[in-house]
């Protein structure tokens, strides 16, 4: 039971879009909170809240350096999950790109029909 709760909680923690954005930023290297605030456009309390969730599931670690708190990605364990959520998103985006083309066709046909009337 504990196992299911652990994996499910972690899974959700990583899959939330804003937290994925933060993980993407940290994939480029260790960064202080202020950097993340600037890059995401979120407020400091919002970023801190997301970082706390990510720490709780082991997705990031933190260390103090002077007055700064530097956050670092724990890459190996979390990348696979991160990757396949993105893969799933890519599948839907590819479907929707095709759907865009279908919609273009339908609109063009409607316009033709309109001309005939």
């Amino acid at each position, binding site marked *: 039971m504990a*196992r*299911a709760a*652990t*994996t*499910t*909680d*972690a*899974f*959700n923690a990583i*899959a*939330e*879009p804003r937290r994925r954005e933060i993980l993407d930023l940290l994939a480029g290297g260790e960064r202080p909170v202020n950097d993340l605030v600037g890059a995401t456009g979120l407020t400091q309390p919002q970023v801190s809240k997301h970082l706390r969730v990510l720490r709780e*599931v*082991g997705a990031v670690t933190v260390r103090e350096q002077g007055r700064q708190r530097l956050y670092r990605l*724990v890459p*190996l*364990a*979390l990348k*696979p*999950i991160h*990757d*396949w*959520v993105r*893969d*799933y*998103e890519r*599948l*839907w*985006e*590819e*479907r*929707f790109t*095709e*759907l*865009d*083309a*279908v*919609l273009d066709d*339908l*609109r063009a046909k*409607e316009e033709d029909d309109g001309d005939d009337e």
Partner: protein
Amino acid sequence: MAMTSSGRATVELKGDREILITREFDAPAALVYRAWTDPELVPRWWTAKRGTMDVCEIDLRVGGAWRYVMTAEGGFEVGFHGEYREIVPGERLVHTEVYEGMPDAAALDTITYEERDGRTLVTMLVTHELPEHRDAHIASGMEHGLQDALDLLEETARSLA
């Protein structure tokens, strides 16, 4: 008014049983709904150019069945089917969804089409009965195994404890 192209799809996991997919389209809701529910049109987009659609059956009435089967490149066949529960043309569609590789795990899909200024926001909420079904659904058809990822994650969580 700034003209933007269609939006990008986002996938979000809500709670422990739901998947939310959203995407904006540069077309009115009636057209998006038509492309979504016409068996002549669905095969043109649902395969995402990853294979051929062998079956596309849509009996669009409450209690009616749907079934999609695709043969992916490499010969792997995937099938899905379900039953329509609620139909409001151009606005809302609710149906069950069963991945035929995991026939005991049915999900409920709620799709809404919201039109504003000629554009349509589509939201598709997939609700599973059990958290394990949700995770397995996302893993199905993926190249990277979910189980590997979860095992790695569990190791990490343990190492922190």
